């Protein structure tokens, strides 16, 4: 079996920052695994600005933030301290620190001395919040719609209602509007947004998009494709006020109701997430959004650099 000092799973900001910091702290045999064809992770589809103000002291877009880290990774690759393996999908992690991954035409098993999991998070879906009604086409998670527009160049709908006012939902309200779609409402069940204030201003207010607080989607209606949603106000206990119900016609519903750390592999190894970046198995670390969901990529980068250092210190100890 191939042996490595350190394997980093995930080539987004967390994985790249962790790998770079591990290198700077003396680890010279690193394998960085990324399932996509490019490094950068979700930053590649976050084409808006607002990244890097803390870490790089500049207002960057997501791809630019990723690019800064990718350039540093490439510089290390030159001295063979780090190998980047793209299109590499990890399917198994054991408590003995064996990582199994698939890449085109290959099935690899590698024994590591330390592992940093930087697998990010996934979106909560319609199924995780109670929205009754039909199950037509036209319902997307906000991040999926972002990928369709910004990476694939498809516009998934023309008349859009967004459920939830988290940052991705707000960003997508602006993105759909700029691409010529009509965003008819952002519907938030809480009395305020979980998103950044600047996104309320520049993504919603700038385009006069109605933002309904203390409202929920009562029902999604549509035969083949979404036709309309029924919206209703709720009281402080989130009970519906039936007399307030009204319909909004639309062909698309975006669900932006939060993110969940993606930790199936850590669970597979029998490990549990503990204090900052550590797990119950010494030498297996977790950082970035797979450790906890962060608001800013800058904070992900800062904390993931610590994970790289933690892994380097662990490798010196054993």
């Amino acid at each position, binding site marked *: 079996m191939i042996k490595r000092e350190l394997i980093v799973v995930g080539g987004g900001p967390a994985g790249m920052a962790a790998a770079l910091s591990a290198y700077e702290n003396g680890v010279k045999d690193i394998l960085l695994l990324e399932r996509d*064809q490019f490094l*950068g992770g979700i930053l*590649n589809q976050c*084409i*808006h*600005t*607002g990244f890097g*103000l803390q870490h790089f002291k500049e*207002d960057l*877009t*997501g*791809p*630019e933030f*990723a*690019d800064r880290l*990718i350039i540093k990774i490439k510089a290390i690759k030159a001295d063979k301290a780090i190998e980047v393996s793209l299109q590499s999908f990890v399917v198994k992690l054991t408590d003995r620190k064996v990582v199994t991954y698939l890449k085109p035409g290959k099935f690899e098993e590698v024994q590591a001395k330390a592992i940093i999991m930087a697998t990010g998070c996934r979106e909560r879906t319609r199924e995780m919040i109670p929205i009754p009604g039909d199950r037509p086409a036209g319902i997307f998670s906000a991040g999926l719609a972002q990928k369709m*527009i*910004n*990476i*694939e*160049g498809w516009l998934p709908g023309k008349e859009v209602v967004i459920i939830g006012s988290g940052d991705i939902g707000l960003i997508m309200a602006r993105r759909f509007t*700029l*691409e010529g779609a009509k965003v008819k409402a952002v519907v938030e069940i809480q009395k305020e947004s979980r998103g*950044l*204030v*600047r996104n*309320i*201003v*520049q993504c919603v207010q*700038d385009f006069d998009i109605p933002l309904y607080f203390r409202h929920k989607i009562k029902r999604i209606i549509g035969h083949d494709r979404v036709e309309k949603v029924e919206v209703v106000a709720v009281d402080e206990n989130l009970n519906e006020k039936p007399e307030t119900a009204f319909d909004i016609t639309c062909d698309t519903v975006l669900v932006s109701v939060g993110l969940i750390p993606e930790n199936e592999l850590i669970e597979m190894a029998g490990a549990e997430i503990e204090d900052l970046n550590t797990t119950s198995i010494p030498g297996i670390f977790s950082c970035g959004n797979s450790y906890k969901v962060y*608001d*800013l990529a800058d904070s992900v980068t800062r904390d993931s650099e610590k994970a790289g250092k933690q892994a380097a210190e662990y490798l010196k100890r054993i």
Partner: protein
Amino acid sequence: MIETRKLTCIDCPKGCQLSIETDNGKVMGISGNQCKKGEEYAKQEIENPMRILTTTVIAEGLPLKMIPVRTSGPIPKAKLKEAIEAARKTKITKPVQAETIITKNFLDLGVNLIATREILA
């Protein structure tokens, strides 16, 4: 006429709540900002609101379908629509790097349209 207007600074994720005193549309005093950027933002936002446009352009014959782009600096908010229409008609056929200029002096706005990620052939 002296008025007080409330604004949220969008220069960074802190989102300071600004209070701006204006006299006939001219900014007289700003409070609530935690840094100098808030002052500049408030003055600009009252007198001529500006935004950076970020969008994508079509890539042809390259491994990506779309390339993310931005204006190299802010442009008048009122020009956003026209700017995105122009970007939609733009195509990239050659490899670019982050910061490669796609369109110089974009729509005569004094800023360039630049790529924000690298794409090789």
